[in-house]
């Protein structure tokens, strides 16, 4: 056995080092740069991880492939020019005018140097691209967008938070659209560049504009708020996300609270269902939860796998909420959307009609049937609070057999261990019959925490996530519920 392990280690080492010499290396690195949005720090991190786990560089593009944009073409070309440059120096220095064996030696040495320095070269290149191309362009676009928003007379609503932003924005827009002209940022496009594009697409006739604020690094929220100058702001929740950029959860909360500089306290709505957010809610601000929102009380909550219903009452007015959403965690945002729509002048019947049009967002607690079983696709979920909501839902639903599938969470920085210990604990509490973990850096942490917290079900560890997803239809049957949370992109695999 020991001999076998040794052989396997030697094979992995050889595969890893040989892959680093691949002639396609500039293509692989450009692909990863695309995946990490030209962030040099993340590129470096990813490259370090490859070495740590002896993953061949040729295996980086599992799920997607390089999109040949002009920028990508230039980067690939620049990569090969780097090789050519090193060759030229090498041949000049060692081989010029020498016998053939010296020439061959020069070529080999140059190739090794070019391969060995290509990541550093790309790191420098990415830093330069970021500083001299991306940032100035972003600043220019930001100013254009800021001018458009300043002139626009619509009510502007900002939606921010560690999770649930897209759902909140879309349900609010759908309900308000029943009697208002509403525009919102599309999907999960929530960065300055996408906001600038959105601003340019506005016609000027919109009555309400809803903009999703994504937090990628400190300062992002105030940056976007400065651009939009919102009238209302909704903070959907707080979770330890993007801890590779933020030092702590306090820092993320601080970033969210920056919104107070731009919106008056009575127009900021904090979700008190979010455990982490609770302690940062300042006085005199509005809150919403799954029991009350803006003076409305919430009753008769009924959670089914593909249905969520409840009743909202306030001063003799009653609104019946019947949606096709899944999970109790949708109660608070749905109720806020209803209350806000009512505040902005919508009638109860228009609101109810709007609610009936809300469907689950793709890959976010999206129930679908496969081989007679129910799959709850929550693969866009990427934070511990969202994972917790999914696990609570799983324990609440009735099924012959409950499955929980996850690779864990990314971008957790120094909190990685703690977050996965918490995830393991929550899995054990939810107690699914079968848990499927993907083989990766955080798997042992989750597994240990599950065991420490008394998980008694079956644990399966999958080395090939894509193969598992492909085989899922053969593994499940009628009566099964499979909760799938989060999915790692290539740079974390």
């Amino acid at each position, binding site marked *: 056995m020991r001999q076998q392990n040794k052989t396997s280690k030697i094979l992995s080492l050889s595969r890893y080092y040989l892959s680093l010499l691949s002639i396609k290396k500039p293509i692989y690195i450009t692909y990863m740069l695309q995946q990490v949005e030209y962030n040099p720090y993340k590129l470096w991190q990813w490259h370090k991880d490859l070495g740590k786990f002896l993953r061949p560089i040729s295996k980086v593009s599992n799920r997607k492939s390089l999109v040949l944009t002009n920028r990508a073409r230039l980067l690939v070309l620049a990569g090969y020019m780097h090789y050519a440059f090193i060759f030229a120096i090498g041949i000049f220095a060692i081989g010029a005018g020498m016998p053939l064996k010296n020439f061959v030696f020069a070529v080999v040495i140059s190739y090794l140097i070019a391969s060995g320095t290509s990541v550093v070269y790309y790191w420098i290149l990415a830093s330069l691209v970021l500083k001299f191309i991306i940032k100035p362009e972003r600043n220019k676009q930001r100013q254009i967008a800021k001018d458009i928003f300043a002139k626009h007379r619509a009510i502007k609503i900002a939606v921010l938070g560690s999770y649930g932003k897209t759902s909140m924005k879309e349900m609010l827009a759908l309900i308000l659209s029943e009697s208002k002209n509403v525009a919102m940022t599309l999907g999960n496009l929530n960065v300055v560049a996408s906001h600038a594009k959105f601003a340019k697409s506005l016609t000027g006739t919109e009555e309400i504009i809803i903009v999703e604020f994504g937090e990628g690094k400190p300062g992002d929220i105030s940056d976007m708020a400065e651009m939009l100058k919102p009238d209302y702001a909704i903070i959907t929740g707080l979770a330890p996300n993007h801890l590779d950029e933020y030092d702590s959860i306090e820092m993320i909360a601080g970033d969210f609270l920056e919104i107070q500089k731009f919106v008056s306290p009575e127009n900021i709505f904090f979700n008190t269902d979010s455990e982490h957010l609770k302690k940062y809610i300042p006085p005199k601000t509005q809150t919403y939860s799954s029991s009350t929102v803006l003076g409305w009380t919430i009753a008769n909550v009924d959670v089914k796998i593909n249905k969520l219903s409840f009743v909202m009452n306030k001063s003799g007015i009653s609104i019946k909420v019947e949606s096709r959403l899944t999970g109790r965690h949708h109660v608070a945002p749905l109720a806020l959307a209803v209350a806000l729509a009512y505040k902005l002048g919508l009638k109860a019947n228009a609101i109810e009609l709007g609610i009936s049009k809300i469907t689950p967002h793709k890959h976010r607690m999206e129930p679908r049937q496969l081989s007679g079983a129910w799959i709850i696709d929550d693969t866009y979920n990427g934070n511990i609070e969202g994972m917790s909501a999914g696990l609570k839902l799983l324990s609440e639903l009735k099924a012959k057999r409950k499955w929980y599938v996850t690779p864990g969470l990314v971008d957790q920085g120094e909190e990685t261990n703690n977050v996965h210990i918490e995830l393991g604990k929550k899995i054990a509490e939810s107690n699914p019959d079968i848990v499927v973990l993907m083989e990766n850096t955080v798997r042992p942490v989750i597994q240990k925490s599950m065991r420490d917290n008394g998980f008694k079900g079956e644990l399966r560890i999958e080395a090939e996530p894509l193969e598992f997803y492909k*085989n899922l239809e053969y593994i499940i049957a*009628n009566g099964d519920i499979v909760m799938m949370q989060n999915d790692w992109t290539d740079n974390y695999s």
Partner: protein
Amino acid sequence: MKTIAVIFGSRSAEHDVSIVTALSAIIKPLEATKNYSVIPVYISKSGNWYSDDKLKDIKIYQSDEINEFVSKSQKLQLLIDNGLTIVKPGKGIAKSSKIKIDIVFPATHGTHGEDGELMGILEMANVPYVGCGVTASAIAMDKVLSKLVVQAHGIISPKMKFFTKNEFQAQSKTWVGTILKELKTPLFVKPARLGSSIGITKVNNEKELVNAIEVAFHYDDKVLIEEGVQNLVEVTVPIMGNNELITAFVEQPLPKDDGVFDFDTKYMNQGKGSKSTGAKSGSQGYSKIPADISRELYEKSLEVAKSVYKAVGCEGIARIDLLIDEKAKQVYFNEINPLPGSLYSHNWRASGISNVELVTKLVELAEQRWSDKQKYTTTFNTNFLKQF
């Protein structure tokens, strides 16, 4: 890791159906278990055996690639040495290779496979294999024989007449006259030993009867003619087990407008043209799962199906087709499928048994039966030869 050979294709009218059964319902789930090394063994339409990982991909059969593969590849050889070993002969400088098979999963439908012939080879090799044995397979494949066997166990089936091609040709007019006199129309004319409803015709008069018999003789030299059941509801019951039986849902296939649940309805049309609504599409075309019948008839169907399974001596898996006279509350035996198309996995899934669980259970049953058989003494020492 155990090695499982999945054998499919063969010289059968259901050659193509067998490919789908093997690839989608058996090989993929077996591989998904990660407990087995799965070897595909393909029997071509001309009866030659091949094995190659390429044969696990449906695309090869959807084009001429399979013909090219068959023409260029080395035929497989079987080595029977108290077990089964497949031998891939060498070509050129390539050496021949041997793979010892631990378990065989037959996926052949119809003639030269589902009818007991393949099981005979596997019995000789003394290798565990999935599904019904030689006798049950042979009985099940012969609609006449299976009816005679179940009738002997007190299970009713529609009134029938049967004959061989020679018998019919010798006295065709007498046969037609007797049939029309003794059986009530509509009648169903069937080749005795063919599955997937191929060659079955519903007839109402003499002319149709004669034509239908001629059609049936194209497929088999033994034909049976059965009375149609009145107030008909057709149902089917997938069963698995050796001694202890597990049943899936009683399923109700929905026939075309002419009342025949034929090959096209089963495999091609996905139920287009069906009269009924509210049905679910399964891999076997349109059907209702569970069948839309009274509780009493549902339970009776399960009981009759299990009695048939036992009477014929089925093991592993089989599907029992029944005909119900809904008004008379009478359940008739129709036929047995010792290897249901795609294992009827859609129904097992609906019953809460996944494809992976299904194939795993079937492999376990095969090993259990083989293990039980090893306990019997198969030799007997005598002085018989010394007297010569």
